[in-house]
């Protein structure tokens, strides 16, 4: 499970996924967002400012971006969804 510092950072991210962040949260985000391009999560704009679809870049030039079925109607939900996925990938833990 996340330790105390991580738990605070996770809660902070939940409230403010984009914007001013504590150093503790920024360190986590730097690791997550600095991942290589293979299978890296991104969003596809479906309807301007209203709908986005989850996708993954491939890291291979010319190879199509992989469209995933998950869609979002606000960016905060998308950020939290991907944060949980990345936490699982990097720490092996499931966040709720």
């Amino acid at each position, binding site marked *: 499970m996340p330790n105390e510092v991580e738990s605070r950072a996770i809660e902070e991210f939940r409230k403010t*996924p*984009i*914007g*001013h*962040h504590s*150093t503790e949260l*920024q360190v986590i*985000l*730097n690791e997550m*967002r*600095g*991942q*290589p*391009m293979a299978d*890296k*999560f*991104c*969003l*596809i*704009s479906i309807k*301007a*400012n*209203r709908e*986005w679809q989850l*996708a993954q*870049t491939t890291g291979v*030039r*010319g*190879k*199509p*971006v992989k469209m995933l079925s998950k869609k979002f109607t606000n*960016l905060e939900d*998308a*950020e939290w969804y*991907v944060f949980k996925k990345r936490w699982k990938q990097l720490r092996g833990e499931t966040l709720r």
Partner: protein
Amino acid sequence: MMKITGYADKISVAPGETIKFMVNSEAGKRYRADIVRVICGDENPDGPGYREKLVKTAANGSYKSRKQVIHAGSFVEIGASDMLDGLESFTMQAFIWPTTPENGTQAIISKWRDKDKAGAALIITKENGSIALCLGNGKGKIQTLNTGKPLVAREWYFVAASYDAKSKTVTLVQEPLHGFETKSDRATVRRKSTVGRVPNHDAPLTLGAYFKKTDNGRTVCGGHYNGKIDSPRIANRALSATEMESLKTWPVAPELGNSVVGAWDFSANIKGIKVSDLSANLLHGEIVNLPARAMTGWNWTGEEMNWNHAPEQYGAIHFHDDDIYDAGWEVDFELTIPKGMKSGVYAARLRAGEHEDHIPFAVRAPRGKPTAKVLYLMPSASYQAYANEHMNTDAPVGQLLAGRLVQLDKFNLFLNEHREYGGSCYDAHSDGSGICYSSRLRPILNMRPKHRAWIGATESTLWQFNADTHITDWLEAMNIDYDVISDEDLHYEGLSAIEDYAVVVSSSHPEYHSVEMWDAMAAYQQRGGRLMYLGANGWYWRIQYHSEVPGVIEVRRNEDGIRTWEARTGEYYFSFSGEYGGLWRRNGRPPQKILGVGFTAQGFDISSYYLRNPDSHKAKVKFIFDGIGKNEKIGDFGLIGNGAAGLELDRADRALGTPPDTYVVASSVEHTDIYLVVCEEMLVSTPGVGGHENPLVRADITFHETQNGGAVWSTGSIAWAGSLAHNNYKNNVSRMTKNVLKRFINPKPF
């Protein structure tokens, strides 16, 4: 996926002049083209909304679809010649610096006709990445003999292949110039050919690729080579090792004179597209798709950084399999600008079913007859530098810079899959080397209304062309007449393009300028002209246009500045002109000199706001704040990151050239730690360079006077444009901008 794309032959056009449009349509049998005036390209429903106005012109109509493709990849083409076509025995040799020897077949010197596999080519073989000679008899028999010793990427080699028709002996030479004794990559190999007679043919000689076919007059090649070639040579017999050695340099030993068919010197005519043959045969050629010139050669010593001083050490051309200059498509329709067509930003809108593209262009006022006091300078050079940028799919730093998940749209998805459309001067070629040339003679799919850019902060996520439509939208909403010209007009026409206007309004991010553009703007200011700089990171990189072919710029990412790639040491001078490239700051002209402010920090998550400084209450600049309260937060709203101060930020600095007596009337505050001080400010890497801590992370709004009643007002922030339309244009960013514009139109001295 987009099924319709296009481009124009010009970026700006005046009444009476004609602009041509080239279209690739794979969307049904016909498509519709209409000319529209672009008002606001931002589709965000929380803003003023997307707006374009249909303009009735003779070009509007239905057109037949046709597929038009881009053949990317550079090479040198040398036309058919008796000297080449009749070769039976031969030697091909060159110095090479391969960057992707593992990539498969890559031709270095090729006299090859692909349709019947006839001829000979010195290649890197797909078998094992070593040097090989490929021979084909045109009757189905092909033989590729290789050295079997894989080349090491990014190391110089002398390579050669000879063929003696009488004895049918092939000799291969692979001679490393590096000293890695543990690498077993030196080879001289002799083999018998089993191909039989290699037939003569009149296909062109190509360097850096092999000839495949012609397509509507365009030479189409395959086997594109990534890397440098220096001093390619062809002789009409199989030379000995000593003779090959002699032919490496020029002039050649007299006894070899009659044997030399061609000896190409890439260090001659570096600024042009011509490639010179030193031999008496004068088999000159041309570069195709602009491979990089003025590249350090095999004999570069490191003592000289400027190719103008030692061209003989710059005899290399760097070829790339994704170089592109002119897509070369056929014209589908054209528009002669009617008399009376109002100056502005327009586009040819292409539609076929659900598929749509826009090809933007500027309509100028009639030449020599301004129709307004205000001029909007469309930053076409900066659009070109960013043309078809791929960082959102290629660069891991994207999400770190953006501080969030990056967003892609239909344009990005198309560009990711269609690498033949070429990259931007922010991207790397497929071999990892930086892209230093960018052409507008191809569809530029991020210079589009409706485009959303990953880098453009939260909310509307706008950058460049589409962000700039918030400036033209605001001018329209304020009922202010304005004319438009492009950077290219300013470059070629100088001061005369802008001198008749009372005010020049900039775009949100006019980053790239040639010396001609820089001088014209400086002269304009000194003659009483007034500049409203509504952006940031402007006048930052030096560029140059090609002197022989239109529509292409060069950027060299030299020793300093925010760079997504780095020019190799010794390759800091433009091939187009011989000028030193890099930052204007490193050319003795920091942006502060001409704008009052210059690039200081960047971040791409959320924007912030400004607070007034004591300078703002001084009598001279009171007009700027007319109707704005003493303690008002300025721009704590907006469609670009929710604030007027964001993305890239500029600050005043006397030490960098901000004129004395400049008024720093407001400064931004509260930027996130995604905002970091630019690297040219850091002589020593230090902690504390983020927005929470560092006082250099701020945008300054400044005003200063120039000679003869001129003035400059700068906002120091790219995000400024995104706040103009807030609350139906009734807000303090809009108000301040209008206060300044009204005052600047008034010729009264300050």
